[in-house]
């Protein structure tokens, strides 16, 4: 065994010789930024070996480092194996940081009809003249207090076993918890004395990156607490594919455990803040993508990632929370949103519930953008959906100075047309460290309208300006000079970054066009575009239209619903009637496989232009660009 000491925290871990530094870091509980899942592809897990012997192919991975980093002995944690006892310095930028997380669902007036209720009963003790059994006595009492009909209530054996003692010990004053489950009503718990005011439920957005939990007081119908944290599965790979591959290699158990641990951590943190005992949480509603929910339930997701992309289950599921290790009342229920396909999961059904598009006559377009994107088009009568890989560019991946929406990320930019000087703001207002998705969209739109780039995203190197230069392989535009930044180097956007961004936006737009074609409608018939996902909330709608990320419609008709997944989960938690419609919504949605759609590549290529090869699809943008670009020329 070798001892690895991580600096600056001096965290120590023992690990077998030949293990990678990444293995050791994960063992030590350091959450490193491994976008590629530890395959030596992303270059984000930079560490410095201070002492001891390691092996690392600096030649092979040299491209990830600056001269300065190289001279200081930088290496990639995932590709460095440990030979002797070592000391490893981990820079802050290598660790996953606090993220700006969306916790505001929309303000929707949803009727309060939770599916779990508590009933406090004071029963007459049995006597020779009234010798009816304990259970009947209890259930009649509940029925008398407004509960369901006694005969309709099912009581599991575990609860039944506890009834006699609890009733007698509490002197026949106790509180029963009744849940409406797919099979009917069920007595899930019996407690001594009056605990009827202590009934909570959790709505969970199980994202592949972030987990958000809303804790609801199911008696008062108010939010009791909110918490969020990273999905700990990130340590097994940043993207879903990497995680499924991890599961295939190392088994599903670890990912299942990490998913429940992540949810538990968020539930615990929300409970602690609100001063709630987790035992009083009786229901957990989870909306997540299909792979995430499969993993949470410990169902093998391996068959979903290869053709013909088949999930094990798509309908809504209810199980006891205790069976998968969720930290709440052991008899509590877990409800998992239904899915449409591998790629249109419960999170999207939750988005649909949140925006209400399935109840409207007018046609809406719902776009949820992350590393993958999902698009749903339709109304109360029909709905088409599709999904694809947008690539990580819009989230700051595959972009030299791209970063997630962490403190220091440039999130808004404008460029002054004359001197091409940018003005930007960063998250938390600190010196910039990189550029996040919304900043990148602004940047693209501004570079286009100031003619720094042409419509294919190529930088006009003929412009005489110190901000436009070619230092490495690609021409680049300097967004911030080294002395203005927090990282001590110039923050630039390269032509290659721009190309990646354009490819990302092209796949989203091409997906929209493909669905519109399938439905036989034009952009004019779309009444509303809903942007879901954390990303959507910060996006500049006008700039998103200028670069042709979305079809051009009136800006006022573009609505950010924010984290639709958690909003949908909230709705399903507090309103059981809405929850009942979910399966029906999911089955109504037709899934269009873009890979099988012959015209998709064509739509994609025509979308790899700013805003689009067919400029008639973007009349407003075209007019705007004509004005500012002509003025510039």
């Amino acid at each position, binding site marked *: 065994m070798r001892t690895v000491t991580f600096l600056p925290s001096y965290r120590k871990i023992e690990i077998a010789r030949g293990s990678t530094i990444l293995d050791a870091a994960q063992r030590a509980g350091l959450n490193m930024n491994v976008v590629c899942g530890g395959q030596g592809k992303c270059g984000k897990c930079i560490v410095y070996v201070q002492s001891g012997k390691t092996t690392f192919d600096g030649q092979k991975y040299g491209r990830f480092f600056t001269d300065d980093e190289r001279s200081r002995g930088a290496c990639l944690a995932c590709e460095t194996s440990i030979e002797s006892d070592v000391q490893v310095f981990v820079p802050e930028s290598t660790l996953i940081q606090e993220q700006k997380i969306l916790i505001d669902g929309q303000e929707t007036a949803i009727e309060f009809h939770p599916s779990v209720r508590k009933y406090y009963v004071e029963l007459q003790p049995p006597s020779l003249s009234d010798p009816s059994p304990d259970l009947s006595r209890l259930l009649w009492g509940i029925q008398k207090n407004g509960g369901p009909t006694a005969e309709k209530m099912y009581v599991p054996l575990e609860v039944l076993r506890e009834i006699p003692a609890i009733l007698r010990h509490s002197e026949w004053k106790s509180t029963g918890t009744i849940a409406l489950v797919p099979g009917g009503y069920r007595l899930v718990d019996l407690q001594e004395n009056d605990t009827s005011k202590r009934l909570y439920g959790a709505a969970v957005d199980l994202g592949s990156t972030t987990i958000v939990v809303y804790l609801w007081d199911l008696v008062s119908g108010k939010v009791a607490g909110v918490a969020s944290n990273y999905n700990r599965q990130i340590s097994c790979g940043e993207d879903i594919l990497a995680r499924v591959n991890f599961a295939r290699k190392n088994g599903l158990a670890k990912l299942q455990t990490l998913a429940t641990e992540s949810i538990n951590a968020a539930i615990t943190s929300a409970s602690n803040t609100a001063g709630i005992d987790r035992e009083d949480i009786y229901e957990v509603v989870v909306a997540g993508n299909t792979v995430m929910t499969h993993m949470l339930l410990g169902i093998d997701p391996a068959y979903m990632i290869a053709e013909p992309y088949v999930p094990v289950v798509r309908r809504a599921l209810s199980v006891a929370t205790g069976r998968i290790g969720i930290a709440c009342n052991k008899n509590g229920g877990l409800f998992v949103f239904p899915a449409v396909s591998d790629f249109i999961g419960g999170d999207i059904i939750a988005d649909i519930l949140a925006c209400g598009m399935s109840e409207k006559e007018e046609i809406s377009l719902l776009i949820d953008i992350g590393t993958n994107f999902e698009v749903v088009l339709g109304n109360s009568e029909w709905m088409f959906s599709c999904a694809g890989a947008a690539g990580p560019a819009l989230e700051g991946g595959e972009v030299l100075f791209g970063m997630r929406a962490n403190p220091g990320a440039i999130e808004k930019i404008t460029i002054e047309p004359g001197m091409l000087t940018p003005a930007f703001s960063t998250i938390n207002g600190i010196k910039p460290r990189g550029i996040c998705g919304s900043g990148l969209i602004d940047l693209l739109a501004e570079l286009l309208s100031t003619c720094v780039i*042409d*419509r*294919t995203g*190529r930088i*006009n190197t*003929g412009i005489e300006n110190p901000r436009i230069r070619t230092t490495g392989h690609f021409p680049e535009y300097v967004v911030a000079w080294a002395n203005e930044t927090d990282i001590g180097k110039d923050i630039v956007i390269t032509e290659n970054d721009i190309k990646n961004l354009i490819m990302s936006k092209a796949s989203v737009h091409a997906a929209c066009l493909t669905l519109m074609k399938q439905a036989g409608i034009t952009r004019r018939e779309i009444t509303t575009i809903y942007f879901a996902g954390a990303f959507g909330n910060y996006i500049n709608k006008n700039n998103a239209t200028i670069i042709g990320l979305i079809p051009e419609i009136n800006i006022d008709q573009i609505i950010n619903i924010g984290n639709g997944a958690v909003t949908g989960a909230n709705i399903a938690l507090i309103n059981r009637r809405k929850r009942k419609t979910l399966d029906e919504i999911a089955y109504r949605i037709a899934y269009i496989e873009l890979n099988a759609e012959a015209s998709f590549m*064509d739509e994609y*290529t*025509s979308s*790899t*232009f700013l805003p689009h*090869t067919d*400029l008639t699809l973007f009349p407003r943008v075209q007019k705007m660009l004509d004005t500012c*670009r002509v003025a510039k*020329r």
Partner: protein
Amino acid sequence: MAYDLHFDWSSSITEVMLGATKAEGGTRRLSYRIGGGTTLPFLETTQGSSAPLIAFEICDNPQYWSPIVRNYCGDLVNDCGEWAKTADSGYGSDMIRLYLTSTRQRNFSDIPSVGKTVESVLSNTSLPLIIEGSNEPKIDSEVFLKCGEAGQGERLLLGTAEAGRYRSIAAAAMAYNHSVIAQSPIDVNLAKQLNILLKEIGLSRDHIIIDPYTGSLGYGFEYSYSAMERIRFSALKGDTDLAMPIICSAVDTLTVKEIREAGPAIQDDIAVQWEFTTGLAAAIAGSEIICVRHPKTIPLLRKAFASLKSGKNTIGGQ
């Protein structure tokens, strides 16, 4: 003919002028006005619509050229002035396309020689000229400016602009009133994008010829055919950003395996047939300029075009 050959098409291909006679400010003995089509080629019912032009390709450094052509043309390949002269008077081509292959050497810097080469070809033939510049973005600007300057007034066709490098060639074309070949990789959308880019930096539509990139017969030509067809359909339906004449140059044809590995006795014939079939198909798809490298392909194509015009089958069967 009793039926309408314009279907639901209402637009026409933009006309582009190539070459300039004395009266037009140049020194060519003739000039061409290409484009103007309102339907697919060889369907034209109107009189006077012309057959596609045949351009013979030469170069100023034959080490990059097919040995088949080098063998056939002999010593001519070492003197592009003489070669051009023979292409004009001997081979009977309509245009000369000069590839400045000499600029492809590493660290090429002899820009004045480019001007001399262009001047030499211009003085040895009075046919309109197509000039292919360097393959190296670093010297693009100088090479194109030199070509443009040397051919000032001659309404040259300069090649080749691509989405990744179009500014310097467009600048040279605009400065000296030449036209530009806009090449994109076998895709109607990419072709359109490049035309929009050229338009946006100020090159007018009637100075652009589309090169949709031609794969060799048997090696992807069908994709090129389909791209040409789609470009033409879009143009006829009114997409002005695609309504430019098309040039086809299947530059890899003479290096395909079937020709490379053919026995010496039949190699020449196979090469000619290959080039002929490619050129003919491209003409039917809509190309206004067909480029060839083997002299013997020229009369074959000419005969085929003539027969298609007259409706008589005079090809083969002899």
